[in-house]
């Protein structure tokens, strides 16, 4: 019987098949939509909401939160956050490229172990790592002592409580997100391309800029986005390494929800942060799409 009518059996199985995959997909998707999408919508709604006399959030339509964003005090913080996050991206790229390059091309059979040795501690407790980093960079910590010993710093040089301290914290916190995509790109890189560059009498510098760098541009672009996203939203680094004069937008948001109790303004700031990040993401997507189009041509 089954042999005579295979089609109906297959059809039934296919129908069953799609149904079971949908059913498997549904709980997780509904859960995430319920919690995540709904909560993000709530942030947007509350950004135009109001508070009652007790400070509890009330729904409504009031642009006070949005208008407050134009306050120079907040635009200054936003500009500083952008500056620090972008600087962090650049420094991460400058640090991660040689490290990823060395491991990918000269790591030999220790490649995987070396990358694991970078990735594993990075996913360990962020707070404890930042706390240790702030001790290392403190006024009588090992880094400044070493710099003083070789004459690169004098007794008055400080790292903590400055913008440099915040950026140092952000770099330490997120440089791994630059190393992973760069390493992946460099690992895929065909080394004979570099040799070809050398064979065509390109010096090491010209070979690097005309062969290696273009071939790993997508890895670098992915790394820049992956570092920019968390760096822009971070508030721990500014708190531990920067002090009150170096606050970033994350600190403002935290303050509006915990100390200031101005939830509409906090929500408006959160939306502003999302907007900045969205612009960054879209820029990245356009860039990669253009790259792909060029690659196809």
């Amino acid at each position: 019987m089954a042999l005579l009518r295979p089609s109906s059996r297959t059809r039934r199985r296919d129908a069953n098949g799609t149904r079971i995959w949908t059913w498997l997909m549904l709980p997780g998707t509904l859960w995430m939509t319920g919690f995540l999408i709904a909560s993000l919508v709530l942030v947007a709604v509350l950004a135009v909401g109001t508070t009652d006399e007790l400070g509890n959030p009330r729904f409504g339509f009031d642009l006070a939160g949005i208008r407050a964003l134009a306050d120079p005090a907040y635009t200054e913080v936003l500009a500083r956050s952008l500056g620090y996050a972008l600087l962090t991206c650049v420094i991460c790229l400058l640090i991660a490229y040689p490290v990823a390059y060395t491991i990918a091309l000269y790591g030999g059979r220790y490649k995987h172990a070396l990358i694991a040795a970078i990735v594993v501690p990075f996913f360990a407790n962020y707070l404890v790592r930042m706390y240790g980093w702030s001790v290392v960079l403190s006024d009588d910590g090992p880094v400044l002592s070493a710099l003083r010993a070789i004459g690169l710093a004098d007794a008055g040089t400080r790292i903590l409580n400055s913008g440099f301290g915040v950026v140092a914290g952000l770099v330490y916190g997120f440089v791994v997100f630059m190393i992973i995509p760069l390493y992946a790109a460099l690992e895929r890189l065909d080394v004979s391309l570099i040799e070809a560059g050398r064979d065509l009498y390109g010096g090491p510098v010209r070979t690097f800029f005309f062969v290696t760098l273009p071939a790993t541009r997508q890895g670098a672009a992915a790394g820049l986005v992956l570092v920019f996203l968390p760096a822009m939203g971070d508030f721990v680094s500014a708190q531990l390494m920067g002090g009150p004069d170096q606050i970033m937008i994350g600190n403002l948001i935290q303050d509006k929800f915990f100390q200031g109790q101005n939830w509409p303004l906090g929500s408006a700031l959160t939306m502003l942060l999302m907007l900045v990040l969205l612009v960054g993401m879209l820029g990245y997507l356009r860039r990669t799409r253009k790259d792909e189009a060029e690659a196809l041509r």
Partner: protein
Amino acid sequence: MTLVRMPSATAPASPTSRTRARRARAHRRPRVLIAVTGLFFALLYLPIAVVALFSFNSQKSLTVFDGFSLRWYRAFVHDDVLIASLGTSLRISLVAMAGSVILGVALALGLVRCRTRLGSLAGLVMLVPLITPEIVTGVASMLLFKGLGVPLSTATVMLAEITFSISYVTVILRSRVAALNPEVEEAAMDLGATRWQAVRLVTLPALLPAVLASAVLIFALVFDDFVLAYFTTGVDPQPLSVRIYSAIRFGVQPTINAVGTLMLAGSIALIALALFIPRLFGRRGGLDILSGK
């Protein structure tokens, strides 16, 4: 030792002195690059080493090591508040791990096999937590609970952590599911299994190493997570990382060195274990026939 590939097939039979010199140069390791990498590793591990070293200090100082002592570990064990927080963190991690692994594995299976429009929509929803910074998800979750009138507590941390861990499980599992050969499931069904039995008895066992690895990883990530817990936790008992945050904001507390060292050691061990699990099962998860290519 070096990875620079020798073009042996194309190289002339007797290389000129020029190419030989160039090859020698290629084989020489670039000292500057290696020095930079060495410095990077030193700075990467220095903060961890400092925290660990001074957790054994007999004095309160973070700059002068005065002598070996377990006094801060003893202080931690006898600190009822910190021990309660440790228990809270462990419970949160276990619940978040169980919840997100169940939902995430199912979602990964569905996303790979389901080629409907709903499937691609679900794929988009799944990406949102990965591209949203933690502070935004923290604020959003807190507002949702407050908006629904749910008082913040350990349970709200669990719910929030599940929500944002599902994506990680799904991302880890998706490539593993895609590597499975669906014909094996078909074969199981030709032998009389129902679709559900085929998934349960054939597909899930093949995914076991990846499922275990993602479970261990999620446990460690949730245990270490601070931002989301900070925004969604109630007053008492707070998760350990929230306690650590309050402590390090107000100056040196050597007990935190001891707690931090234990946490670092624990999560480094767990993350290393997660990387190692697939190898315990052999390269291809133990079931060669199920891997696609």
